[in-house]
């Protein structure tokens, strides 16, 4: 029996996996094993499933994911570092029919852009935010992020993050979940296939929240950065279990559910 016979069968070829229509066919600039690609794929799948490709205006961050516009085939604007929530707010208000998506990393959202994310959330802007937390500044060479775990060595915490000099990890999604303008806040992880499935459901919910005009929605994704962490791709994926001890996985607030939707 040839391989062809096995896969083709009598009913012809059956596609069991493929590239989502909104994911462009080009080689990635991300490092081997990087988590961004998985998140990009989930977003492209969901925007396609929901028929949002022609309505979406997305906002790109400064950081490794600035090139998200090379991979997810919708309209994009590149925001200054940390300002994506303000840029997205401007789009949201003048384009009520658009689907507004923003993609930010931890340095972008939880350090330089803290004011912008908190106030966009406080205003309850109808925006869906994707917050990729890999605990490091990847693009600039692996410096400490506000989300870096205590004790972790980075190029700017060469002896490990010491809370006396470098402060504590920032659980900003929990902070945002306190705000009444936030309709949905959740944290997922790329640790394994099952978790990625759950993350997909969270992202879907965060998109539904905007489509139902319920408020601000954010999904934090615990992602791996093998190069920045000095690990192999597999080691970095395994390490996400340790990261989740500081950043618990789950839904923090779902006001759609609370409202019976």
């Amino acid at each position, binding site marked *: 029996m040839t391989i062809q016979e096995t896969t083709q069968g009598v009913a012809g070829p059956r596609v069991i996996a493929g590239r989502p229509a909104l994911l462009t066919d080009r080689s990635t600039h991300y490092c081997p094993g990087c988590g961004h690609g998985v998140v990009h794929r989930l977003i492209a799948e969901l925007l396609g499933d929901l028929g949002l*490709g022609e*309505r979406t205006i997305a906002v790109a961050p400064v950081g490794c994911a600035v090139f998200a516009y090379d991979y997810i085939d919708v309209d994009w604007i590149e925001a200054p570092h940390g300002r994506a929530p303000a840029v997205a707010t401007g789009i949201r208000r003048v384009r009520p*029919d658009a689907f507004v998506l923003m993609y930010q990393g931890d340095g972008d959202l939880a350090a330089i852009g803290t004011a912008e994310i908190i*106030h966009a959330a406080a205003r309850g802007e109808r925006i869906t935010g994707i917050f990729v937390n890999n605990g490091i500044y990847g693009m600039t060479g692996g410096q400490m992020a506000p989300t870096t775990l205590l004790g972790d060595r980075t190029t700017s915490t060469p002896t490990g993050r010491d809370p006396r000099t470098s402060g504590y990890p920032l659980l900003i999604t929990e902070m945002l979940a306190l705000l009444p303008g936030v309709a949905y806040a959740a944290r997922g992880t790329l640790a394994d296939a099952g978790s990625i499935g759950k993350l997909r459901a969270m992202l879907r919910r965060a998109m539904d929240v905007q489509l139902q005009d319920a408020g601000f929605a954010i999904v934090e994704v615990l992602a791996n950065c093998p190069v920045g962490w000095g690990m192999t791709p597999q080691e970095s994926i395994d390490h996400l279990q340790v990261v989740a001890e500081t950043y618990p996985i789950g839904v923090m607030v779902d006001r759609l559910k609370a409202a019976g939707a």
Partner: protein
Amino acid sequence: MAIETPRAPERVLMKGNEAIAEAAIQAGCDAYFGYPITPQAELLEWMARRMPELGRVFIQAESEIGAINMAMGAAATGARVMVSSSSPGISLMAEAMSYMAASEVPVLLVDIMRGGPGLGSIGPAQGDYFQVVKGHGHGDYRTPVLAPSSIAEAIQLVPDAFEIAERYRTPVVILADGVLGQAMEPVVPAYRTPPRVKADWAVTGAAGRRPRVVRSLHLAPEALEAQNQHLQAKYRTIQAAEVRWTGEMLEDAEIAIVAYGTAARVARTAIRQARAGGLRAGLFRPISLWPFPSGPLAELAGRVRGLLVVELSTGQMVEDVRLAVEGRTPVAFHGRTGGMVPTPDEVVTALRRLWAVTTALEDR
């Protein structure tokens, strides 16, 4: 059939900040973003009341950084957008101004200048000339800057500024000062709504077309240099087409003042006083600070015995005057700061001093 007699346009008493705000509304401003700061707060307050009445967008942002980035997002969709602030707030907007210039997003920014540096004062000043005219933020770019000298002129320049912004896809600044923002003057509000330019670059959702990206990152050296050359070519077009200035009593002038904004108001009085005293003085008033009216100023410099630059600063525009004049005639400076405004008497004294020096030079 009743025949209506056309009525003369009504003169109304308007505060500068409110006149600029209403001129923007009448020019078709779709969205305004701001943050409270003296002496421009009335502009924000006017927008807070009027924009929602008209079903348009008003947001009081969390900071000037928030406001200008909201403006960038809204304008990137093709909307007509205005932001206003005063000096310290303009400093916070420097980053986004660079990004908007680079990614060619048209936004109108109004700067009602106050005393500086630092927290300075809330009095009128012209100390933001370097900051605004020379480019605010990082990188190789220029920003068209229009400087009204009266409230009526501010009303005219608002639609012009939107037009320049949209025609050339660039941020544009209206640079005024605390006197113009706070003073009330009788004006005939000559509002104008510029026609819309089709924004075939804007991000609107890629319905029926290929997706677009509004960006400023070009990592490949060749690509960034090409983009910079594209911007510079655009700036040369603006320099050729958008120079604005006006003169008073220049035809027979032996000496002239160069001043913009409120300083030019003082200078108008001063040249009349000087003429009453026998000194044939004129006024050269730049309206576009970038592009600077270097050519006409150089021509004037060739036929007067000296130029006196008057500013509400320690001397900023004077550098552009000297560059334009290229030594053709002596250039002197008189300025006050901190919210102090020079009096016409002071300016006449400075003119006479310059006259005496240049006459002595020529007699030698």
